[in-house]
C-alpha cells in the first residue's frame, strides 16, 4: 500500500553501493594490469582502459620469476603452518588436560606475547639469525614465524580442547592408548575446526609477513612473494602495466586459499567463540 521500499531493498542498495566503493582499488589494479601496451596512461588512475590485453602478464612472467618467488613463499609458509599446528596443539593439550608445575606461568607468558609488536623484535631477531648463520635462508624466516604464531594457535586449541568431552579419551586410556596416541588419534581428528582457523591465520600472516622478510632475505632467488614489488619497482618504474600484473599475480594465491577455506573460517570462528 505504501510506496516506501522494503528494509530488505534498502539494505541491498546500501550494501551494493558500499561494496562497489570497496572494490574500486582492486578493480583499478586489474584494469592497469590488463591495459594494452602502448596505450597512453588511461584516465582515473587507469580504471578507464580501452581494450584488454594480457601482454603485461607475459612481460611480468618474462622479467620477474614470479613462480620461483611463489615457491619460496610456499616453502616458508607451509613449513611454518605445519610446525605451528603440531607444536601448538601439543602444548595446548598439556595446558587443557594436564596440571603441572610452571604450566600456568608458561601459558600466561605465551598469552602476553600476543601483545608484543613484532617490529620491536626485529633488531634482536636479525642478530640472532646472524649469529646462527640463518640470515638469507628459509629457516631464518620459518623459525620466527613459527615462534610468533604459536601463542595465538595455543589459545585457539586450548579453548577447543577444553570443550571436548573427556569420556572418549578416558575410554582410549583404559584400552591402553598412550597420551601421545590419544592426542594424535582422538583429539586432533576431532579438532579440525580449530585447525582450520589456525591454518588460515598462520598461512595469511606468514604469506604476507614483510618486515622480517625484508631484513632477513638478501638473495633475490630466496625472496618470498611479498618482497617482489620492491625488487621490480625499479625496473618496472615506467611500466605500470607489468608492475600491476605482478601485484595481481601476488594476490591470486591468497585469494584462492581464502575462497577455499571461507566456509571453514566462519564455522571455526563461531565454534571457538563461546559467550564472552
Amino acid at each position: 500500500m505504501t510506496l516506501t521500499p522494503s528494509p530488505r531493498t534498502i539494505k541491498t542498495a546500501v550494501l551494493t553501493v558500499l561494496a562497489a566503493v570497496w572494490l574500486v582499488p582492486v578493480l583499478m589494479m586489474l584494469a592497469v594490469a590488463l591495459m594494452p601496451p602502448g596505450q597512453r596512461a588511461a584516465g582515473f588512475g587507469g580504471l578507464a582502459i580501452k581494450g584488454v590485453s594480457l601482454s603485461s602478464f607475459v612481460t611480468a612472467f618474462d622479467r620477474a620469476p614470479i613462480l620461483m618467488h611463489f615457491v619460496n613463499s610456499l616453502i616458508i609458509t607451509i613449513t611454518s603452518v605445519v610446525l605451528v599446528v603440531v607444536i601448538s596443539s601439543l602444548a595446548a593439550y598439556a595446558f587443557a588436560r594436564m596440571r603441572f608445575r610452571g604450566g600456568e606461568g608458561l601459558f600466561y607468558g605465551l598469552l602476553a606475547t600476543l601483545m608484543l609488536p613484532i617490529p620491536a623484535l626485529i633488531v634482536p631477531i636479525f642478530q640472532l639469525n646472524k649469529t646462527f648463520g640463518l640470515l638469507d635462508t628459509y629457516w631464518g624466516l620459518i623459525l620466527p614465524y613459527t615462534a610468533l604464531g604459536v601463542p595465538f594457535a595455543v589459545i585457539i586449541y586450548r579453548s577447543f580442547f577444553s570443550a571436548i568431552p573427556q569420556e572418549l579419551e578416558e575410554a582410549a586410556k583404559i584400552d591402553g592408548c598412550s597420551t601421545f596416541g590419544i592426542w594424535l588419534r582422538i583429539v586432533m581428528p576431532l579438532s579440525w575446526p580449530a585447525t582450520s582457523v589456525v591454518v588460515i591465520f598462520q598461512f595469511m600472516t606468514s604469506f604476507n609477513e614483510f618486515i622480517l622478510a625484508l631484513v632477513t632475505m638478501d638473495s633475490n632467488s630466496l625472496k618470498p612473494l611479498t618482497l617482489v614489488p620492491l625488487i621490480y619497482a625499479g625496473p618496472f618504474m615506467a611500466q605500470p602495466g607489468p608492475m600491476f600484473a605482478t601485484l595481481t599475480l601476488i594476490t591470486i594465491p591468497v585469494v584462492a586459499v581464502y575462497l577455499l577455506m571461507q566456509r571453514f573460517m566462519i564455522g571455526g570462528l563461531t565454534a571457538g567463540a563461546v559467550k564472552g
Partner: protein
Amino acid sequence: MSMSSAPRSGSLAPYLFVLPATVLFVAYVVYPILYVICSSAYRWDGINQATFTGLANYIRLFTHDPAFVLAIRNAVLWAPLTILPQMLLGFAIAYMLETGVPRQAIYQAIFYLPAIISPVVVGIVWQRIYNPFGGLLSDIGFASGLRFLTVPFLSDTKVAIYAVIAVNVWQWTGFSMLLYVAGLKGLPTETLEAAKIEGATLRQTIVYVVWPMLRHVHLTLILLGVIGTLQTFPLIYMLTNGGPNHATESLPNYIFLQAFKLQSMGYASAISVVLMVIALALSLFQVRVLGARFALAE
C-alpha cells in the same frame, strides 16, 4: 595426590608436550626482549665494537628527537581514527548482512578481500589512487569540480597521515565485519524475538540489545586495533616511508630506519623498548581495567 580428571601418564608427559613451544618461546621472545633492553644502553652500528652509553639513547629520544615525537603523535591519532570507523562500519555491514540480504557470501567476500591482500600490494595500489598526476582521486576531482580531491594527499605534511589512515580503514573494516558476523551468529534468538514482541524499534534493538551483547567482540577489536596501531609497518613503508619529513612516521618504521638504514642498532633498540613498554602497558590496561579478552579464546 591424584589429579582428578587428568590422564595419569607419568609426570614427564606434560613437559614433553610443551617442550617445543617453550624452546621457541625462549629463543624468539624471551631472549630477544632481554637482548633489546641490553643493547639499548649502547652506541652500536651492528658491526663494530659497541660503546656503553647508559641512558644516553633514551635521553636523546625523549628530549632531542622531533621524529620520535611525531611517531608518538601519529600513534595517538592512528588508534581512534582506525579503530572506531572500522568497528562502526564493520558492525553496520555485519548487521545488514545477518538480518537477511540475498547473496550474503558475495558481499562478505568483497568486504573481507582487502584484509587478505598483502599490505605491500595495497600500498602500491593506493599510491596510484592518491597520485596528484593522473591518479584516481585527482582525476575524479578535476572531472567533477571537487577540488579538494586534487590535493597531493601523500606529500602534504598536514594531510598525509589521514590519507594513510583511510587506507587502513579500507583494508581492515572487513575483518571487523567478520568478527561481528561470528558474534551475531552466536546471539540467542530468543532475546532478539523478545525485543521484537515487546515492540522495540530497529534503533532500540540495536542500541539496547544487540550492541551491548556484543561487548566481547568490541573489546577484542579494540585490543587488536591497539596492537595493530603499534605494529603497522608495510603500509606506511610502501605508501610514504614515514614522510614527508616524518609526518607519517610510526614507531616500527622509525626502528627500521634507525637500525637498517642509519646503522644505529643501539638507538633502534631504545625505540624498540619504548614500543614494547607502550604495548604491554596498553594491553594490561585493557585486560585488567576493561576486561578485554580474545573472543576467539574462552
